[in-house]
Structure formats: structure tokens, C-alpha cells
């Protein structure tokens, strides 16, 4: 059951998108998120769809694998859809009791769902095509200019690396403890909310203990290898922009120009 979570997971294949410099991928993803909020007309999402499909095709990640990442937020999507459908004032097309659906409501609901889905798909494309190490490396580089104002860029990146590194470990651990307690007759799946919360104690206590133990061991291991933060640290793989990164930047620039342009035209 926990194996279904694909958010933040890396999909290891060789592709043009995988090879891109993480800095350019992070920047593009960030600007892409903003671009989604520039879109005001639903027809412009056609362009976004094309752009996303192009990237997905190039990234060689199966579409259903990406869509699986939407599962955890399925409820939120439904919620956004329903709220917008019923709460938007305008010309009524369906009316029953307190329920009132307007043409603007339908438009707004579809619009919001598309925006939410594209937000998730876009960002999961970043993590699916960028290994956690490359990702944090990129973030550290992008944050370096802020070091001057006292931002601990290296430490932040290290924290992220460690956090990402431990997601699968902790998931695995959760799965194991859950199974062990289920073997002792624990029931995590039925009962009311109160009972379910209580049923989590046998899971959470061992999980926290093991997380602290792991943190302790990791700190010790880093200490033993003389880790002293980012000062004077050099890296084995130095990030370097290539031709393809420039090309990716240009293509994305074109996309942004189109989105911004269409906003003023439509």
C-alpha cells in the first residue's frame, strides 16, 4: 500500500530530460509553476498540455506512472471541483434545492482541476527525472548567491539530501512495523477515527524510536568522516552547463513568451 506513493520518486531511465542540468530543470519547474498562474483562459491550457506532453514523451517516463502520483491528492482535486462547481455565482444551468450549478461554475471547476493536475504533474516530472543527489546539488548552487545575506545554502541542501534519502527508508520501515503489528492482530483499516488514531500508537512509537536511532547513527558516521559543513568543500561532479541546457532554456523561454503573450491577447 505504501509502495503506491510516487511523489518525490526518481524514475531511473536514460533520456534527454534526465541528462539536463539540475539547475536548469529546477529553474524551469519554478517558472512553470508561476506560468500556470498567469494562464487566465482555459484554452491556453491546451498549450500547457502540449508542452507537458512533449516533455513527458522526451523523458521516457510512462504516462500512467506519472498519473499515479495524483492518487494521494485525488480527494483534494475532487474537493476543488465540487466547491467551484457549486459555489460560483452566475447563469444557472441546473438547480435542485440548495444545489445550483452555473455555467461559470463548470468552467471554473474544470479550470481549477486542470491547474491543480498540471501543478502536480509538472513538479513530479522534476523529481521523476532528477536523482535526489542532482536535485539537492542544483538547489545548493541556485541558493549560493543568497549566502551573502546569511542563508546557509549548503546546510539546507544537506538537510534536503538527508530527508530525501530517508523517505524510502522510513517508508520501508513503516511497512515492516505495520506488518509486524498486523501479525500480532493489530487492525489499521477498520473502526472509527478515534479507534484508528489509537491503532497508530503501536506503529508510531517504534517508528519514532527507529528514526531517532538512525539520526544518531548517521550523525556519528558523518562525524567519523570529519564532516564540518560546507566550508572549503569541493565536489566530485562539478555541474557544467551544456548546449542542451541552453536549448532547453530557449524552448522554455518561447513557452513563457507564448503564455504571457496569450494572456494579453485573450
Amino acid at each position, binding site marked *: 500500500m505504501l509502495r503506491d506513493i510516487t511523489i518525490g520518486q526518481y524514475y531511473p531511465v536514460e533520456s534527454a530530460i534526465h541528462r539536463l542540468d539540475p539547475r536548469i530543470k529546477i529553474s524551469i519547474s519554478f517558472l512553470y509553476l508561476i506560468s500556470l498562474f498567469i494562464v487566465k483562459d482555459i484554452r491556453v491550457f491546451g498549450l500547457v498540455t502540449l508542452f507537458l506532453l512533449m516533455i513527458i514523451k522526451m523523458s521516457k517516463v510512462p504516462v500512467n506512472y506519472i498519473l499515479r502520483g495524483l492518487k494521494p491528492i485525488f480527494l483534494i482535486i475532487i474537493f476543488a471541483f465540487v466547491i467551484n462547481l457549486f459555489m460560483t455565482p452566475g447563469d444557472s444551468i441546473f438547480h435542485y434545492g440548495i444545489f445550483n450549478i452555473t455555467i461559470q461554475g463548470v468552467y471554473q471547476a474544470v479550470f481549477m482541476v486542470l491547474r491543480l493536475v498540471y501543478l502536480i504533474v509538472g513538479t513530479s516530472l522534476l523529481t521523476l527525472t532528477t536523482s535526489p543527489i542532482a536535485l539537492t546539488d542544483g538547489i545548493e548552487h541556485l541558493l549560493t548567491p543568497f549566502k551573502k545575506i546569511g542563508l546557509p545554502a549548503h546546510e539546507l541542501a544537506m538537510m534536503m539530501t538527508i530527508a530525501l534519502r530517508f523517505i524510502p527508508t522510513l517508508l520501508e520501515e513503516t511497512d*515492516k512495523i505495520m506488518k509486524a503489528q498486523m501479525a500480532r492482530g493489530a487492525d489499521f483499516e477498520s473502526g472509527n477515527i478515534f479507534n484508528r488514531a489509537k491503532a497508530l500508537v503501536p506503529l508510531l512509537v517504534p517508528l519514532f524510536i527507529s528514526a531517532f536511532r538512525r539520526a544518531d547513527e548517521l550523525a556519528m558516521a558523518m562525524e567519523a568522516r570529519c564532516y564540518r559543513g560546507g566550508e572549503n568543500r569541493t565536489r566530485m561532479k562539478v555541474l557544467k552547463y551544456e548546449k542542451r541546457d541552453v536549448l532547453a532554456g530557449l524552448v522554455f523561454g518561447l513557452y513563457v513568451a507564448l503564455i504571457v503573450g496569450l494572456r494579453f491577447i485573450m
Partner: protein
Amino acid sequence: MSITIEHLDHIYDKGTPYETKALDDVSLTIETGEFIGIIGHTGSGKSTLIQHLNGLIKPSSGKIVVNDFDITAEKVKMTDVRKKVGLVFQYPEYQLFEETVARDIAFGPENLGLDAKTVEAHVKEAMALVGLDYETMKDKSPFELSGGQKRRVAIAGVLAMKPDVLILDEPTAGLDPKGRDEILMQIKQLHRKNKNTVILVSHSMEDVGKLADRLFVMNKGQLALSGTPLEVFRESEFLESIGLGVPQIVKLSEALIKKGIAIEKEIVTVEDAKQELLRLLGSK
């Protein structure tokens, strides 16, 4: 409690690049009261196999029947299955969570819906079985115990549910030799006393050779060999080719046979070897 497994397959992460076939057409039968050893290299599918036996994971295809009761069928009440088949995981001490030892052990029987008195009786009995003194230990926090004691508490937690089939996944991993011998002894005694079915998963040939009536050797998700320890250890070359070995004492007897020394009885345990060697020396 007999267990029959028919053509069991299990595939992890189907449809992703991480897809792996953990079990490949495994069929086997375990009779009531047998002491079974399952051996295999890391990743050979032994842990996946035993998790199927109490319904923790569902097979991709195949059938498991525990005592005429098909646990792979739809709509089976899993609590019924888990009452019958107790599973002690690897490093079970990491599942302890209660404030006191007694309450932690009581977690399983309480989940079975037993009344307080029966639960207490089960807890006492389970603690005695693993060699923990009820009066001195019951109110201690499980987290202040030593590693070996924690392991016993965790094993007692499963024993207190009184399962007909007891499965132990590497119960001695990470213990010192003394702790290992004690736990194995207790498992052996338990089996002798209660006559229940015990399945011991291990990669130590010495341990399973000493204890089990019958061995199943797993390799790459398939059942590679099965038979009594003696029969299995005869295939020492094959065992070595799949990354397993035979107990040193079996190697010794092989070496003696090669040297032309007439060993009459085949040797599996150190005790066998001692008797046979004494006999040989005495006959000279």
C-alpha cells in the same frame, strides 16, 4: 495445522522499473507438527514466502491452504488466519512500543479479543517459554532491556497469541553466540512441548541443520531443494554454487570419507560427529 502452497508467484512493484519477481512457482506441503527450516541467500524470497503464510501479502497468483482453509480466497477474515499462524519478524525488538513488558506481550492476545484473565495467563506462559521471569520483568520498560532480552519479549509477544503454526524469520540475527543458542534451545523445547508446527527461516546451515526435520532451500524465488537435513547437505556442491554452504561438521565428514575413513553414519550435527568419531577411535 498442515500448510499447502500451490504454484505461488509474487511480483513486487508490477509495472514499474523496479519490478522484481520475488517468488516463482513455489509449491510445497508442510505437515502438522513438523519443524521446518527454510534457508536461502538474502533476496532468495524466503521472507516474502513466509509473509504469505499469514496473509500479510497477497500472492500475484497461486494458492495457499492452511488446514483446509484457503487463505488466498477473497473475503477471508485475516484475524482468523493470524490467530492460527504466528509470525515473528526479523529484528522483532523494533516493534516494541508499550510502557511495560507485560503490556507489550499482551498486545497480541488482546487484539484477539481474549478477556483480561486469559490474557494474563497467556502472557505469563509466553514469558516462561522464552525464559523471562514474570515477576521481575513484567513492569520494566521494554526499552531499558538488553538486545537479547528485547528479542525475547518480542518473541513472547507472538507466542502469547498461541498460534498453531509459529514462523520465525532469522530469530537469532545480530545476537551473540550465547543468546543465539538460548533462543534456539527454547524454540526447540517449545516445539517438543506443544507439538505445534514451527517454521524457522535462517541462512545459518548449522542452526537449521541442528533443529529442523525437513529443509526447504530457496534460490532466486524458486524452491531449489527440499528434504531432510541429511538429504539436503548431500548436495553440498549445489548449495555452494547458490551462495550457501553446508555446516562445517558435514564438510569434515565429507573430508573423512574422501580420505577413506569408514564413517558408517552420515553426520549432520556436532553431536553425531562426536559419537561417530568416538566409535571409530574405540574400534581401533
